[in-house]
Every structure is written in structure tokens, then in C-alpha cells.
């Protein structure tokens, strides 16, 4: 078993799998069950200011989309921050941390955007024993209408300002949770860094409507015939999250800023990908909400096996893919591949043919016996056939060796060259 012990901005946990601030971490009962199941840490469901707690709707809070066999692919929610009294939450946090000293326990916070509110809440949580705070600048629904959550996360100046307040009034490690509902994730990340954040966590949920009821014409989730946008999460958002994590990890101004990766982590493999893309640990919510807390055991065993097989330590995995995450203009335009169909593996469904013939480059031939072959002189290597083939590894992309002639272009495969020097690039010509 590989050593999965994690040290994220000084917060230690037995593994890098934390539960994100969300319904599963709303109270002592759930968090104890999570720790008993093996989770390395939790970010406690977001606390608000002292005073009457917020209220939630009493109708559906979640909407979803499904794949085959009703596999949940995406979940959307309109739940707000904790609706339980602050004092109750603080007392529970104290008790849990005392009983689970080896686990990470971070408190998520969201209070109005003024210095006094932040100073007050930080003082109240000081003696809970919690390991750190996470500033919820991400929540896109409900609280944003009240000037909190993503309303703050969409304005870099606010992020910097509030982060600075938190660092001023608290000694706790501070994680800034970012919203993906922005044009670019970089300015908010930079602002967090300027404000003194110890780390950023991302992504929070994405503004979304999961579906529209075609009888009542209400968007979902529906409350009394009306729907409001919710926050989208689950496996469907992973690609968006991976990109944003990678953008922060590679950018000169944000490189080295610790990242807690969030967004559709469902298996150990997803987690490993976030780590490779620069995340120091991961946070999980939807997978636990779908399958229960036990899934962490698969994540632990899977990541451990992977690291063992690679002969790698956990910290050596972190950021390993970042140098390979480049801009389009840096891609090698002289890298030529061709699709190749393994006839033994082919089950003759013809989906590659339909996809290529109808929607792409007419580069697959179909014989009367349903033998499908690639026309190398037409194949642009787009990979669509690979993506629609139901048999894994039946169609692969085979690299043409240097010196070979691409039958499609008639050009010889040569050394690395990218768009910045390509003759068709006006900028490249201007530079000459």
C-alpha cells in the first residue's frame, strides 16, 4: 500500500480525499460517519453569520441528468448554506475534531462582504480546533442574490479584500473557493493569491437548469411550478474543473499556489487526474451523495495501487501533467496519426462509419461484409471514430514515423513545428 498521507498547506490527513463543503458535511452525524468510512478530511458545510439561520425551500433541492441505467451524471442543487444555528454547528465541530484529531476539518464560511462580519465569524470559530477555513466565494444560487458566494467570487477585488481580512484576523490556513461562473478563472485566482490565500479550491458549482418539465413547463428543480437556476456538479463537470485547475497550475502568476481540486471526482482515477493536473488534494461531494461514504475505500485502494504500480510517491504525482498542458499554438503541427481499426476487436456495429461518413471526413470504408477500414488518404486523425466506438482500444491512433509521407497531404512527416512559425500564420510572417 502506497503512503497516501497528505499534507495540504500544513493540514495533515491520512489520505488526500476530503468531502467538500456541501450537504454531506452539514452536521456531526454525517461527518462522524464519513470519518468512520475513511475520509481523510471534511470541509464543514458553510456557516453564516450569527443570528437567525437562513431557510431552505421545502420542495425539491436537486435536479439531475442520467446516463444508461439511470447512472447519475450531473446533479444540480438550490440548497443554501447551513440552515442550523451557528452555535450548534460550532459545538458539533468542536466535538468531532476532538474525537478525530488525525482528520482534516476545515470550516467553510460565507458572511456579508464587510470587515466586521468576517472579523466576528473568525473570532467565533477560533477555538473549535478546526484546521483551517475555506471562504465560500463560489455558491452561484440564492446567496449570490444577497451579495455573497459567487457574487464575491466574480469580482477579483472583493476576493482580494476579503481574503486579506481573513488573513489579518485569523492565523488559520485560508483556502479560497472559486466559482467557475466567470469568463476566466485566472483573475480570481490571482486575486486570492494577492490577498494572501494559502490555497484555492475549485470548482464550485456551475449555474444550471437540469431540465424543463414538458407538462408544467417548469424548469427543474421545480418549486410550486417555478424553477430557479441551481449549481451543477457531478461527473459531467469534471472536464471543466480539470481545465480550470490546470490553468491556475501552469500560469506564471499563480503557479505554486496550492490547489484543492473539486468537480466530478467520482473514482480514484478522477482524483489522480486532478492531482496530476496540479491539485494537492481533492474534494468530493456528488459521488458520496450518489453512492454513500463507502466509495472512499475504492478511491484509497485505487490510488494506492496506481502509485505502487508507478513506483511513485503521492507528492510526485501532483502537477505531473502540468508541463504538458499547453496553449493550442504550442501543439506540434507535424505530429501525424492515422486511425487504425483492430479487425479482431471490431464488432461491426458501423458507428465509426456513420460518424465519419455523415459528420466528418469520409475516411472509413465499409465493405458489403461489414469490414470497416480507414482510408489513410482521407483520415485527418480527428479521433471521432475512437470516441464513438463502443469497444475500448478497437480503434487507435497510430503515429506516423518521421520521414514517412502522409498520403492525405503528400507531405513528409518532419520535426516539431507549431503555429507560431507556420507559413499560414500572418503573425509569424509579420515577424520575419
Amino acid at each position, binding site marked *: 500500500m502506497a503512503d497516501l498521507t497528505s499534507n495540504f498547506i500544513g493540514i495533515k490527513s491520512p489520505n488526500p480525499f476530503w468531502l467538500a463543503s456541501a450537504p454531506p458535511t452539514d452536521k456531526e452525524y454525517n461527518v462522524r460517519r464519513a470519518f468512520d468510512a475513511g475520509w481523510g478530511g471534511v470541509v464543514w458545510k458553510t456557516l453564516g453569520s450569527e443570528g437567525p439561520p437562513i431557510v431552505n425551500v421545502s420542495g425539491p433541492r436537486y435536479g439531475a441528468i442520467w446516463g*444508461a*441505467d*439511470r447512472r447519475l451524471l450531473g446533479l444540480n442543487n438550490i440548497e443554501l448554506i447551513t440552515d442550523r444555528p451557528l452555535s450548534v454547528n460550532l459545538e458539533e465541530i468542536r466535538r468531532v475534531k476532538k474525537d478525530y484529531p488525525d482528520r482534516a476539518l476545515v470550516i467553510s464560511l460565507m458572511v456579508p462582504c464587510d470587515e466586521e462580519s468576517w472579523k466576528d465569524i473568525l473570532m467565533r470559530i477560533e477555538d473549535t480546533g478546526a484546521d483551517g477555513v475555506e471562504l465560500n466565494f463560489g455558491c452561484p444560487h440564492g446567496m449570490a442574490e444577497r451579495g455573497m458566494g459567487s457574487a464575491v467570487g466574480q469580482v477579483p477585488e472583493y476576493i482580494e479584500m476579503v481574503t486579506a481580512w481573513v488573513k489579518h484576523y485569523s492565523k488559520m490556513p485560508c483556502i479560497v473557493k472559486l466559482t467557475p461562473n466567470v469568463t476566466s478563472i485566472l483573475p480570481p485566482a490571482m486575486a486570492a493569491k494577492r490577498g494572501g490565500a494559502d490555497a484555492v479550491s475549485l470548482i464550485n458549482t456551475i449555474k444550471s437548469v437540469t431540465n424543463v418539465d414538458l407538462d408544467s413547463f417548469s424548469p427543474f428543480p421545480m418549486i410550486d411550478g417555478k424553477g430557479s437556476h441551481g449549481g451543477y456538479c457531478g461527473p459531467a463537470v469534471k472536464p471543466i474543473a480539470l481545465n480550470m485547475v490546470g490553468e491556475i497550475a501552469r500560469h506564471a502568476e499563480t503557479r505554486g499556489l496550492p490547489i484543492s481540486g473539486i468537480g466530478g471526482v467520482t473514482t480514484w482515477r478522477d482524483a489522480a487526474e486532478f492531482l496530476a493536473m496540479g491539485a494537492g488534494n481533492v474534494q468530493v461531494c456528488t459521488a458520496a451523495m450518489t453512492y454513500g461514504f463507502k466509495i472512499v475505500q475504492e478511491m484509497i485502494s485505487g490510488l494506492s495501487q496506481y502509485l505502487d504500480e508507478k513506483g511513485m510517491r503521492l507528492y510526485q504525482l501532483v502537477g505531473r501533467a502540468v508541463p504538458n498542458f499547453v496553449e493550442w499554438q504550442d501543439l506540434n503541427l507535424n505530429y501525424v496519426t492515422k486511425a487504425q481499426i483492430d479487425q479482431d476487436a471490431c*464488432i*461491426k*456495429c*458501423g*458507428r465509426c*462509419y*456513420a460518424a465519419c461518413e455523415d459528420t466528418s471526413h469520409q475516411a472509413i470504408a*465499409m465493405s458489403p461484409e*461489414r469490414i470497416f477500414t480507414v482510408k489513410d488518404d482521407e483520415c485527418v486523425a480527428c479521433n471521432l471514430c475512437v470516441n464513438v466506438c*463502443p*469497444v475500448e482500444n478497437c480503434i487507435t491512433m497510430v503515429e506516423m514515423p518521421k520521414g514517412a509521407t502522409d498520403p492525405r497531404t503528400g507531405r513528409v512527416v518532419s520535426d516539431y513545428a507549431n503555429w507560431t512559425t507556420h507559413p499560414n500564420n500572418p503573425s509569424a510572417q509579420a515577424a520575419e
Partner: protein
Amino acid sequence: MSNSPLTPGVVPGRLPAEAIAGNFSDHEAPLDAHEARVAADRCYFCHDAPCMTACPTSIDIPLFIRQIATGTPDAAARTILSQNILGGMCARVCPTETLCEEVCVREVAEGKPVEIGRLQRFATDTLMAKGVHPFARAAATGRKVAVVGAGPAGLAAAHRLAMKGHDVVIFDARPKAGGLNEYGIAQYKSTNDFAQAEVEWLLKIGGITVRTGVALGKGVTLAELQKDFDAVFLGMGLAGVNALRAPGEELSGVRPAVDFIAELRQAKDKSVLPIGRDVVVIGGGMTAVDAAVQSKLLGAQNVTIVYRRGQEKMSASGYEQEHATSAGVRIITNAAPVAVHQAGAAMEVEFAYTVDGPDGMTSTGETFRLRADQVFKAIGQTLSGAPEGLALAGGKIAVTGAGRTSVPGVWAGGDCAAGGEDLTVTAVAEGRDAAEDIHAALMAKQ
């Protein structure tokens, strides 16, 4: 006093009535809505799908499965029924394991095909449960067509002709319409009187009159039909039964398997049906399997299918054979009947072992006997009562193109016509295609 499988002779109630009723319920339970969605999700929506090519009625299988997957089983049913108006029965009786499901790419890849038959049943049952008939008749053409035989071929032809605006009269010798769907299919494949329900639903198209108790040579002649109608379609099936041509065949315990099956299908309460303790079924097709399995389900102790050639030549599919053996039926191959002997109250059937060689089938000379209270002959049916003047081919009505017989104005399809497998689905295809041809011919004459 109650009977058991061990009771000598031919007696009813060898099993408790509830057990018998259970034995004749749905052989394969229908899919519920969720199961159907899951099963439908397995379809790859193949390009130029092999399943569709394998279907004698060319149902657009990927399309109807996608319609199920997207929550519109009614639309799926329309896709099915537009090609095969008896899609409901075919979903139950088609040997899908040798048709669509055999060539399903997932069968080829994983040995586990998409459950096309059960999905088709889900779609057609959903629509039929609403009592909706999804097709409407075209404007009346004023033409009249006679259809002989209310089996799958005749019903398919009649429906298509009625839909095109023609008036149709169907004649059938039996008291009920449906043909083999009503009288010839194993009970557990067509439960809850489905065959009659399907006929009633089909007739909702309108324009079709059914006259039962009438057959060619029994109340009507082909010449009369030719005179009174603009066209005639013959789909009267195969009413004759092949003979064993062995001494003792005339013994009262020896009877055609199709008669036993028909009697069983018509019995409301199966527990009153007498069945032998020892039953021997001679033949290698689906009729043999249906008779043997149902004998077992009635409580017969020993049921044996004996087929004269090798197992690979049996026309019952591997799936059907497995169904028989798992029901407790023994299958003996390469044994031909020599004689049926009276043996006290029962009989003994004497068989000779055979070998299939380059010169055909020969007897090894070695014989054996099987005890039998009942012997069911399932060695094929023959055309009987074919009208004079029609050219025959291989003992069936010769046809060219879409069921055109040698006599102008007369078409034929289904089991009575030469060519094609003797399957319900093939009969539907032939009836439908002949109807289209009749329609074209009638409209061209205007």
C-alpha cells in the same frame, strides 16, 4: 384420489391445478418500464444494422429501441407495426435467437444480445394496452379482395389491403381467426388469450369481414372467389400432417402433435387435460418441442423427443432444444420410427438407429423400444385441399415475385406457399408484400 406423474395411463391432473396454471403462464416475463429502458440502452444504434437485415419483416430495430430509450414506446410500436402488423405476436414467438438477436453485434461480441424480442413486446404491449389502433384507412377504392386463411399471412395481407382502402373478406375453416397464432403456438408463449386480443385489435382498422367455418371446398370455391372479388389471397397454411409410414400408426394413442397443441390452446383449464405418463414425440422441429415441453408441463413423467437425423439437422433452434431439455425432456437423435406396438394398455414405439452418410440416411440395424402412453407425430405438415389449376412446387403453391401464383388474380403467402421459412414472421412479410402487389395491380387496372 389425485393423480401424479406416476399414475399409469393417460389421465388429467398429474400436477396440482395451481402448478399447471403456473407452468403455462408467461415463459418469459414481460419487461417493466425500467427494465426496458436499461435493455434499450444496450443498443448501439448500428449503422445499416444487421438485426434489421435479419428480420424477415425488416423492422427498423435500432430506431424502435431508441424510441423506447427516449421514453416513447408508442412511437416504437408504430415503427414495429408499420412493418409487421403482428409485431406483438412475433415478439413472443419469433425464434429471435436465430434471427435478429443472433446477428446483434453484442451477441457476436459478448454472447449477450440486446433483448430485441422482449423490447418489441414491451413496445407493442404498451400501445395495445391503450386500445389504440395506430393506422387509418385510405379513401375507399371500391375494390374487394378475398383472403383465404385468417392466420398470420392472411391477417397481414388483409390489414395492409384494408389500410390501402380495399374491402376485405377473410375466410377461415376454424371457429376462430388467428391460425397457428391461436391453435399452434405453445401456450406459455401466448398467454391471456393474446392471439384473439391481437386479432380484435388488428381488425380495428376497419373494412375487414371475417367469416369462420368456411374453407376452399367447404362453403366456397376459388372460382367463386375469383368471380366475386377483384383479387384473391391464399394463406390457408398446411392443414395436412405427414404420416409416419410405420405399422401401428393407426393405434388410437398415436396422433398429430398439432392436434394436441390446438386442443391444449383451446382448453381454458389445463388441469383437466389428460396426458400420458410416458409420452414420445417424433420429430425435430418447433412443433415437436412445443408438444414435448407442454406434455411435461402437464405432468407427464417421461417425455422423449426422437428425431431421425443428427442434432445439427433439427430445425428447432439450440435455444428451443435447451428449453426442452431444461424442462426435463429427453432428446434422442439419429433414431427413426420402425413400428408402434400395442403393449397392454400402453404402446411401445420401436426405433432403429440411423447414420447420416454420403448416400443419405441409413439404418444401423440396431433397434430399441420406448414405452408410450401417447405418441405425438411432429414430422411436418402438408398442403391439403389446394385448388385445382394452381401450379405447385415442392408440394406447396408455386409463387413468383410477391406471392403471385400461376393463376392471374390469385396470390399466395405463408406456409402454404413455396419458399421462405415456415415462421410466423415470414408469413407476415409474405402477406404484407402480396398485399402491396395486389394493391399495385388493382390500382393499375383503373
